[in-house]
């Protein structure tokens, strides 16, 4: 494969763009590079489970960020009532949210799998509202943050100081991405899931239990995002609406990467994370960083539709 045809592949294209930007940034504004990397991995780790659900179950889960928010509250409650450190609470959160995911799938999601896309969107939107308002009713809308000492760890290189604790996002993103890739490519269960994602009917014909695969993938994704809620709440304060922007940003990343492209999600979140931190670094314009993802998604949609028309 020549270099040129390699460049035509989306992932390589994006990787080259990022590499060039990163080199420029490293000299000009090093903190943008470091914090952008951390933020990008935060986005990636939330978007990956959503991409998994969309790619295999075929449902766009608008309640995705809300499960993360619940995961944060779960870790908070364990900390307050049992005294468990949020990072230890990842393990019980994984188990609890696997069960919650199973319950959600069995009770709700299963019934709209064959329904029109509109009904699926409305249903998960309603579910998001229910979860949000439930959290609002139980914990009120007051932001909650635990006083943890280790989150403010930092390192200094020359005159440049940066937080080191946030590299936990990078670690989490790597674990989730590599773990998911290994699961999907190396295990028979993962290969079955990929087959179901490509063609549910064909998968059924060769004897794969489609419904059980959907259940497994949905619960696994909810478990991942719920457990990440425990990591998220160590650094950020949580409140009922904290998850909603992440749902939209995750979808933006998935739409940029293309459905079913897990590696692409990581590259696209690097673009979004670096771009947001770049805007944040200008004093007086920081407020505009929150709408960058919107500009990105509209840009992607316009480019995509041009490409489609040419074809």
């Amino acid at each position, binding site marked *: 494969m020549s270099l040129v045809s390699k460049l035509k592949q989306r992932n390589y294209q994006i990787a080259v763009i990022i590499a060039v930007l990163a080199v420029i940034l490293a000299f000009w504004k090093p903190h943008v590079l470091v914090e952008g990397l951390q933020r990008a991995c935060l986005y990636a780790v939330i978007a990956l489970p959503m991409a998994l659900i969309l790619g295999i179950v075929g449902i766009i889960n608008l309640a995705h960020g809300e499960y993360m928010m619940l995961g944060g509250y779960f870790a908070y409650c364990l900390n307050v009532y049992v005294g468990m450190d949020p990072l230890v609470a990842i393990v019980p959160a994984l188990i609890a949210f696997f069960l919650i995911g199973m319950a959600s799938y069995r009770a709700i999601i299963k019934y*709209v799998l064959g329904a029109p896309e509109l009904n699926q969107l409305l249903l998960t939107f309603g579910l998001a509202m229910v979860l949000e308002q439930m959290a609002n009713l139980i914990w009120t809308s007051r932001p909650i943050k635990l006083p943890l000492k280790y989150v403010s760890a930092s390192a200094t290189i020359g005159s440049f100081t940066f937080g080191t604790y946030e590299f936990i996002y990078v670690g989490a993103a790597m674990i989730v991405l590599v773990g998911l890739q290994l699961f999907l490519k190396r295990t028979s269960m993962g290969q079955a899931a990929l087959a179901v994602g490509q063609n549910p009917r064909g998968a059924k014909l060769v004897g794969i239990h489609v419904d059980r695969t959907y259940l497994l993938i949905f619960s696994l994704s909810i478990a991942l995002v719920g457990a990440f809620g425990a990591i998220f709440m160590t650094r950020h304060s949580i409140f009922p609406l904290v998850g909603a922007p992440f749902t939209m940003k995750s979808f933006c990343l998935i739409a940029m990467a293309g459905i079913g492209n897990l590696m692409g999600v990581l590259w696209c979140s690097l673009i979004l994370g670096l771009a947001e931190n770049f805007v944040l670094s200008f004093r007086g314009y920081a407020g505009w960083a929150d709408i960058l993802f919107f500009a990105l998604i509209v840009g992607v949609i316009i480019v995509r539709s041009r490409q489609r028309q040419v074809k």
Partner: protein
Amino acid sequence: MRNSRTLLYILILAVLFTLPFYTGVYLLNVMDIILIYMALALSWDMLLRSGQISFGMAGLFGVGGYAAVLLHLNAGLNPLVSIVLGSLIAGALAWLIGVAVLQLRGMYFAIVTLALAEIFRVIVRNLPDLTGGPEGTVLPSAIFSGNSTKTYWLTLSVAVVSIIASEIFRRTRIHFALTSIRNDEIVAKSSGIDVFKYLVFIFMVTSAIQGLTGGAYAHIYGFVSPEGSFSVDFTLLPIAMALLGGMHSTWGPVVGAVLLGVVSEFLKLQIPYGHLLVYGLIIVITILFFPQGIVGTLGQRFRKYGSR
């Protein structure tokens, strides 16, 4: 049959118009809320008939509100004129967004509209010189200096305008175009329907209605703020109302708005902080158990008995 139905409409309209003469202020205020949400629910349903789902009502509602209030304050326009201009501005904005985004449909369009309220909120917050920033802008006095009878007539006319618009869209060629786009876009295209043009047009019209509603609301309550004007209420409640009443019809959203509007007054007193929970539950339950809504389900029943 036709004459008696027209007579019925005129009678209902007359009763609604003269309502202020024999009821109290409280009921009129409740009616204001119901009529505002009724217009939003109708506008949402009108777009849904083309198969596109919008979660962006709160965004265009807020844009209409801000435009009306700022035009009134800065250009010194009459409040009613500024409300109409605000609705036109919301429509024009929707045209721009629609041209960019309606190339792709389904979930892409839905998610982009979901982001709209958030986007407009960020923009409004970051332009403090024009919009008053995070604190919002307060009008020196509400429209008609707070006269509840005239306010009621304003909201009534907003609701009537949206009902008429919805009926026009149901009775003309546009209805067939939108329905065929919803059912099968390729067939619609091969029958000579300019799909993109129709979708942009309907998105523009519904957004203008949302802007009109937002302008009326902002002038009635006399203030706009990033959190209040783009609140999720204005997306969630109309969807719950239209779904419960029944999609793809004029009377479904109307029935849903009246039902839920009355219920919400009760709920606000019972669970002041979590009453939105009930609307979320209504959406989930309606989609799971009777996606046709009340009007659709009852209509089916009647047709069944009729054929027997």
